[in-house]
């Protein structure tokens, strides 16, 4: 029981920035308030620097996974992808599967669309497009329809060739994802 509580405390220290700051302000008191008795004094000896480094290790792994799940967003944002992920990943991943963390990050980006987070308006559309694709793929929704105010097809093609889109790319795109049943292959159209 004590070890389970210790693991929970370490897990929160690594994934929850607010809790980490609270803990290191008064480790013994916070450990005791988490229900730890025998190990409270021992856990109070955890080195803040070691936790900070472990937090980085875990964030890097989450970042790598998010990059695999959101390849277009990553290409579009370049080095900013990692910077913005650092701002997002101050709480634990929302689920066991990497797509859930990627969807959480995409929601964070969409909620903060516009400068300084996303410098071009088309980036917001691209993030929402890729998040919809991820949801259609992994959540196996039968139908998703989205309208974007930007030329998504053109942006996807440019990013696929390694080019960084320059310009406004204003043109309405209707995107549809459809699967006839839970076991059927996903179909996708951009109009």
């Amino acid at each position, binding site marked *: 029981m004590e*070890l389970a509580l210790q693991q929970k405390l370490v*897990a929160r220290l*690594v994934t929850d920035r607010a809790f980490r700051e609270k803990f290191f302000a008064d480790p013994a008191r916070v450990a005791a308030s988490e229900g730890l008795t025998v190990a409270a004094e021992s856990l109070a000896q955890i*080195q803040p620097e070691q936790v900070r*480094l472990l937090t980085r*290790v*875990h964030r890097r792994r989450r970042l790598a996974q998010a990059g*695999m799940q959101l390849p277009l967003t990553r290409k579009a944002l370049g080095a900013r992808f990692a910077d913005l992920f650092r701002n997002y990943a101050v709480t*634990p991943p929302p689920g066991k599967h990497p797509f859930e963390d990627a969807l959480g990050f995409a929601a964070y980006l969409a909620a903060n669309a516009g400068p300084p987070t996303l410098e071009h308006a088309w980036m917001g559309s691209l993030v929402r497009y890729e998040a919809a694709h991820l949801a259609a793929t992994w959540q196996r929704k039968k139908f998703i329809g989205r309208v974007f105010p930007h030329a998504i097809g053109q942006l996807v093609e440019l990013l696929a060739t390694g080019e960084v889109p320059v310009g406004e790319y204003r043109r309405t795109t209707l995107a549809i994802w459809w699967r006839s049943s839970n076991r059927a292959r996903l179909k996708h159209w951009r109009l």
Partner: protein
Amino acid sequence: MFHQSVVGLKRYPIDGALLTTVGRKTEITNLLANLPRLGAGLAYREPFRQELLQRQPEVDFVEVIGDHYLDAPPERMDELEQLREHFTLLPHFTNLSLGSAEGIDPVYLEKIAQLIRRLNPPWWSEHIGFTHAGGVNLGHPAPLPFTKEAVDLMTKNIITARRAIATPLILENVCSPLIWPGAEMDEPAFIGEVLTSGGCGMLLDVTNLLTHATNGGGAPADFLARLPLERVVQVHFSGGHESKGRLIESHAQPVSEAVWQLLDAAVARAPVRCICLERDDNLPPLPEVLWEVERARALGRQHRRWN
């Protein structure tokens, strides 16, 4: 399905020595000794898919992140099937959380068991660590305290997993800058205890070892020497970088000479069945990755781990 030549066994004295031991250890080491010698391969990354299929002869096996194929949509399973048609697949997991004090999720375990039945691999792998605690998901394995209590809980969870999955299980050493207070043993001893009591092989990540030992002020060679090398089945290696005087195992750079040297030392002493390159980020053209795979293959050949 997998062939182990008698000649192969005779070539490696360490295997022969293990076969002469008695009891439960004999049973387990016999199992490990009879695993197939695969050669050199790489961890699968989606951007490499098409080219990888075309360059099949240059890759002896492919490791897949098994967690990514649990509850997966049909198109994702098509991808897995296509890989399976071309390569021996080794499923590697991160989220079973064998080190969780609250036990392992039986539903997740059953999903893993189903995937392993489908792939029929020679072995499967997880980590010596935990990814879940008290409803908090870490997303990547965290270290355990080096205590007898932690050995016991890992053993209990491993036994649960092995009851559900007959395929041999091998466990990977994690790289963590965090050392829990109250350690009753050091890390090599802890790894040895877990593998022995759990009856598992080892997935030795030499980059993790190098990073962990170097950043901790220790000697990687000493750390390596104290591991139960006779249990090493698979080796992971990857490139990292240095930041503010610390090594970072980022899986995002070419493999450093320090890693190659440690890999050489490990392959020289451990009866490895395969060597797997991990590259997650900053992906170069596939030929650059395959050059490192070929160098690892040559190293295994040099130490007579395969022909």
